[in-house]
């Protein structure tokens, strides 16, 4: 205990002090509201629903299968099925949700809903500046619906994989349809 460690510590803090005026590595603080770090691709906050096409409600991929609502550990998803069926992207007739609510007060942003969804409909969003005027705790279908290009923008890798898989399925379905329609025509 001759104070060598103290001197070393003092040197370190001194390097921090004078380095903070010219070396960005010595001043790592990001002054948040003015400066923002580029968001990480895998960051996730609340869930949202993807729609294709122009109309948010008509283009929703959700088929009201309620798997997410069942799997949700916090039971924050409420789904009411619509009675009418509409064709999905493969041409199959599917139900659609009439009500799709997520209670933001309960959601813990675990991402299980996004993982279990078989229709790539519910995905995790990246918005985080949610405390503002006019904020609602229960998000309804209209608030949750976001276009596919938004999904491609926030999670490019995952979105590309999803789009490729869907395109492949669509191609297969069309080939099958063509195969089944060709013998009928001949």
């Amino acid at each position, binding site marked *: 205990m001759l104070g060598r460690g103290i001197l*070393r510590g003092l040197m370190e803090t001194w390097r921090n002090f004078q380095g903070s005026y010219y070396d960005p590595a010595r001043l790592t*603080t990001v002054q948040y509201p003015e400066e923002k770090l580029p968001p990480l691709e895998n960051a996730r906050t609340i869930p949202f629903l993807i729609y294709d096409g122009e109309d948010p409600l008509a283009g929703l991929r959700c088929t009201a299968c309620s798997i997410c609502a069942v799997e949700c550990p916090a039971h924050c998803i409420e789904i009411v099925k619509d009675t009418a069926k509409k064709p999905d992207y493969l041409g199959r007739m599917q139900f659609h949700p009439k009500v799709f609510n997520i209670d933001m007060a309960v959601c813990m942003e675990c991402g299980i809903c996004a993982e279990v969804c078989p229709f790539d409909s519910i995905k995790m969003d990246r918005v985080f500046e949610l405390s503002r005027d006019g904020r609602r705790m229960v998000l309804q279908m209209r608030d949750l619906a976001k276009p596919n290009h938004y999904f491609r923008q926030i999670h490019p890798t995952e979105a590309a994989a999803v789009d490729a898989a869907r395109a492949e399925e669509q191609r297969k379905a069309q080939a099958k349809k063509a195969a089944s329609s060709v013998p009928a025509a001949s």
Partner: protein
Amino acid sequence: MNALDSIFISALHWLAGLAPAPVRPLVSMLLIIAGLMAAFGTCFALATILERKTLGRMQNRFGPNRVGPFGLFQPLADGIKMLIKEDIVPFSADKTLHFLAPLALTAPVWMAFAVLPFGRNMSAIELDAGILFFFAIGSASELAVFMAGWSSQNKYSLVGAMRAIAQMISYEVPLVLAAVPVLMAAGSLSLPDIVQAQSGVALGWVPRWNIFTPWGLAGFALFFIAATAESNRCPFDLPEGESELIAGYLTEYSGFKYALFFLGEYLGLFAVAGLAVTLFLGGWQAPARWLEWFPSWGWFAAKFSALIFLFIWVRATLPRLRLDQLLNFAWKFLVPLALINLFAAAVWWKLPAAMAIRWLLCAGLLAVPYVWLGRHWNGVTPKRRHYGYAQ
């Protein structure tokens, strides 16, 4: 001397001259008090913001930088916040003592500034036993701390106050002992005389400040450590160690009383830093003859600011000690070293002024006990540490 050097004295004479002759001494004294309070009040405000900014820089972040340009109005915002906060007195507290404690801490600390020479002929009163007065006033703060701890009727306050008392009494011993060689050198208890005794240069260019002698350097280090502990600053701030004691004796204080405690603490720091400048760093003397165009109070302010920066720097670096480490460090390390330093200073003055031999002997007298005590004061020889995260 020149006009700039005596600008405060001339201003004082001119202002006091406006008053009628019979009350002139009183007016002049009041003016000095007002000046001191204004100067060191501003100093306190500046110190809080600069300390936070420096600490921030040393921890890789900006300090406060939102209020006003560069965050310089932060003390103003803090002051307003403190003033308009609710003043809570615990139900079972001793109301009178609880009210008096912050005043009892702050009032004597102001008095300590009375004897410090801030420049040539610039001390409020020239006491013959100025340093004695300083230490006597300085130890009055212990009473206030215990008043605060006892009157709050809170176990954390009480334990914090007990710790503070133990710490302050323990560290007062090395604080005073470290100052004694300076008194021996100057042959006077008066602070202006001590500054005067450090005038001139040795070897043609080294100023005759006490810090440039082996006993002065050791004395300054001891004084600095003891002063850090006396003013309850990191790494000796465990009377208010928030991880163990909420806030020590400050637990039950809020609003302006809390601010008064802070004011008292900072003023105590300023006073003891001013004393360190006076005792070891040559007071208001310029380091060389050709630098004397800069006013004497400017030199005092410069040395004072450097010392305050050193306090902040140490605070940013070191973690808090444990209570037993703290007390062992005072009694087993600082006090013996301070006594040895006294002896070394005596040897220094008995030897002829042939510099090299005096230097070597005196430095050896201090270095050998330092190394030996440093290795064995705990009773255990420490293993070589590996600072994995600091590299």
